[in-house]
């Protein structure tokens, strides 16, 4: 018996819900998706859907912008660099651990 493959979006937010949850304007959210700073899925109707984890990412974008006066393209660069540093730091911790 064959089943259709269905994308489960139980924990997803649409654009309006996401904008509401993060206290931002939907236009800004759309812009951040276009800049590749936020990840979103697009359904057949072209509507954007956001995983719940993107709410925290939006918080970081807002804090970096508020704290340093960065433009959004720079925020994208900074978040990418911070993520890369986090991966490197984790690898460094792993390499430094005692034992063999």
């Amino acid at each position, binding site marked *: 018996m064959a089943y259709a493959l269905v994308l489960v979006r139980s924990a997803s937010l649409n654009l309006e819900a996401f904008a509401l949850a993060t*206290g*931002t304007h939907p236009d800004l959210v759309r812009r951040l998706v276009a800049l590749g700073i936020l990840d979103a899925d697009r359904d057949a109707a072209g509507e954007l859907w956001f995983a719940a984890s993107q*709410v*925290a990412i939006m918080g970081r974008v807002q*804090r970096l912008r*508020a*704290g340093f006066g960065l433009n959004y393209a720079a925020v994208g660069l900074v978040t990418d660099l911070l993520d890369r540093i986090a991966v490197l730091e984790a690898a460094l*911790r792993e390499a430094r*651990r005692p034992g063999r």
Partner: protein
Amino acid sequence: MPGGPRADRHDFYEILGVPRTATQDEIQQAYRKLARQHHPDVNKDPGAEDRFKEISEAYDVLSDPQTRRRYDAFGPDFRQVPEDVDPEAFQRSRARAGAAGAGQARGAGGAGGFGTGLGGDPGGIDIEDLLGGIFGGRAGRGWGPISGADQEAELELTVEEAFQGGHRSVTLERPDGRRTLDVRIPAGVTNGQRIRLAGQGGRGTEGAPNGDLYFVVRIAPHPRYRIDGRDLYVDLPLAPWEAALGTSVAVETPRGEMKVKVPPGTSTGKRLRLRHHGLPHPRGSAGHLYAEVKIVVPAKLTDEERRLFEQLATVSTFDPRRR
């Protein structure tokens, strides 16, 4: 803007690490450097967010020549002093009242020295952006609710704690006082693993959720156990005759003593595996415990031991260096 209790305890110049005679450029330079170091998204230390807020608050006051002048004249309580109070009269009244701290305000290095030559915005920097440093704290900035940043701290555990799991009390310094958290350590936690405390990270503003606090586990060096993932290694010292003839010895494990059978003809470096006696795995099979054989000879031989070893040396044809 709420005058935070932190601001009353610390001097804004000290917070930014600049002298009271610092120029606006020097203040801005100090602020930008410190802000980059302590921004909660750059610095995961749980104390960084409060430090960042302090720095922002200090900069907020000192970057505006008018508020800086008032701060210099009236000290940390400047927000309580009405706008039209004459600094000189204020100083005299404070001196009369014998209030402590008046000298500090007077020694502020010529409060009247500012105000001229500060009209321009140096380098075309967007002062509004810089002033937005205190998240959501400034009225009219319109940042809206911003969720708190995740924070990270190291948690050092003993091998025994990692083995058994349990609870550990961890105290964090916060501006609203010390906060003691009860951290549940899952049995079998390994080096580098992160324990998440939901909602215990940086504070969200205007009702936005707090970030999470992560404890990164580091297992402290142990006098007996070495650790690799979930596997434990322990030295097993043997006398030459035990190693040659085989024996059964007790090995200490985190669960207590275990008997290990040493087969005859065991040399240094051989690992005897005690299956699944390493660190437990919450969702899989536990690591192993390896007893590593190390042959140890007496530092001094008795006459009888010497005689027997010499006899053995004569009789034996064993050459450990034979290729």
